[in-house]
């Protein structure tokens, strides 16, 4: 029997796109929130982190309410841009964004807070704009923490199941990511197919964590290198 590899490509596409979106919005919000205190900040942060503790079915239910054909955002997207979120790979991307965003945001806040703020002030006194200071000082110094968030978000996006199933469903070749393919293979009694995808996803997750550990050790060596 020839193996259909579409779940692999779909998973990589969904996790890849959601990671890019989550990375930029996470870094932007973290930079904005890590230095400022304002009314309602803790409520916003709690809302951002909520998907981390909620059951995936609850997240999926909430997303259905928002992005369903009659949902607030879903209706608007369909009318104005002819984009249907439910039962499409776009739905899988949205589910992936929502569940992986807390990981990216928390990593980015920790990374931004760990920077010595005086370094940014030095840059200002040397004539650097806020934009230049961010790209040349804050971003490179926060990069190890941001990279950890990036890898965790990608891995989380790759493994997303519950919310994706509720929002995007299981349409072979269209919305069946690896976790969904595993679930339905087991349900259909196709253990061979399930084992194959389990091995693929374990290998992907394992490689991501191994690479992250290696990279961290490498940068640690660099930091402590003696003269």
């Amino acid at each position, binding site marked *: 029997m020839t193996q259909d590899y579409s779940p692999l490509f779909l998973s990589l596409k969904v996790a890849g796109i959601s990671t890019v979106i989550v990375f930029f919005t996470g870094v932007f919000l973290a930079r904005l929130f890590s230095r400022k205190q304002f009314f309602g900040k803790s409520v916003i942060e709690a809302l951002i982190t909520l998907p981390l503790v909620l059951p995936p079915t609850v997240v999926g239910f909430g997303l259905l309410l928002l992005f369903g054909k009659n949902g607030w955002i879903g209706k608007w997207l369909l009318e104005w841009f002819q984009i249907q979120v439910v039962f499409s790979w776009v739905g899988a991307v949205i589910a992936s964004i929502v569940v992986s965003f807390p990981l990216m945001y928390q990593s980015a806040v920790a990374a931004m807070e760990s920077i*010595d703020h*005086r*370094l940014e002030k*030095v840059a200002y006194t040397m004539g650097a704009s806020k934009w230049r200071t961010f790209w040349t000082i804050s971003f490179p110094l926060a990069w190890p923490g941001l990279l950890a968030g990036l890898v965790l978000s990608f891995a989380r996006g790759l493994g997303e199941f519950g919310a994706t199933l509720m929002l995007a469903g299981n349409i072979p070749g269209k919305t069946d990511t690896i976790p969904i393919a595993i679930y339905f293979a087991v349900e259909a009694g196709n253990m061979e197919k399930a084992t194959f995808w389990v091995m693929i996803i374990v290998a992907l997750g394992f490689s991501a964590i191994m690479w992250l550990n290696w990279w961290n050790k490498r940068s640690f060596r660099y930091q402590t290198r*003696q003269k």
Partner: protein
Amino acid sequence: MLSVKIRKQLTQFQLDIQFEVNQEILVLFGPSGSGKTTILNCISGLITPDTGQIQFNDQLFFQDGLRSLPPQERHIGYLFQDYALFPHMNVYKNITYGIKAKKKAISDSRLPSLIQVLKINHLLSKYPHQISGGEKQRVALARALATEPSILLLDEPLSALDQQTRLECQDELLRLHQIWEIPFIIVTHDIHEAKKLGDVILFLEKGKIIQEERSEKIGHSSLIKRIH
């Protein structure tokens, strides 16, 4: 001339000071938490006073009610306590960070002679964690002066150094001041250092100037100028 007349409410007390400084070394002396660093931060534009005015020659840095000039436009060199060198850049990149239009500007600037005077030629390719405390201090000085500022602020520049290096660096600061001829404002809580470096010493306590002392060095240096 830099003239500073500012008020700022801090947690423990109100900072309320007024002074003027020409092309001389002004030392802000006082115990920790007396508002010394806050004064430097106000002058550099990193924080804004509540009221008052900061003016350098005919350039208004700050006046209440008007827009405060951002630090990027004040043209001030600031040497932070513990130097705050950029850890991910080598010494050369640290020093040239503030120089725009790099190559031409560097060859035309006073940077090559500055590197020479501060004896940091051999350090240019090294990273901050690879150099000693005294070397870091010299690099930070070079970085603060590389943009050819109109004023140099130094926040406890020698506090992290051992006694011997400290004495050497004090002489270096005096030498640099003679070459550069701009106002230096130095924060310290070492009275010997204050007396050795300062043309004017302002004694601070809880945000107020409690005493002002003009060193004999002033008479000495103006005498030298008159002779020349």
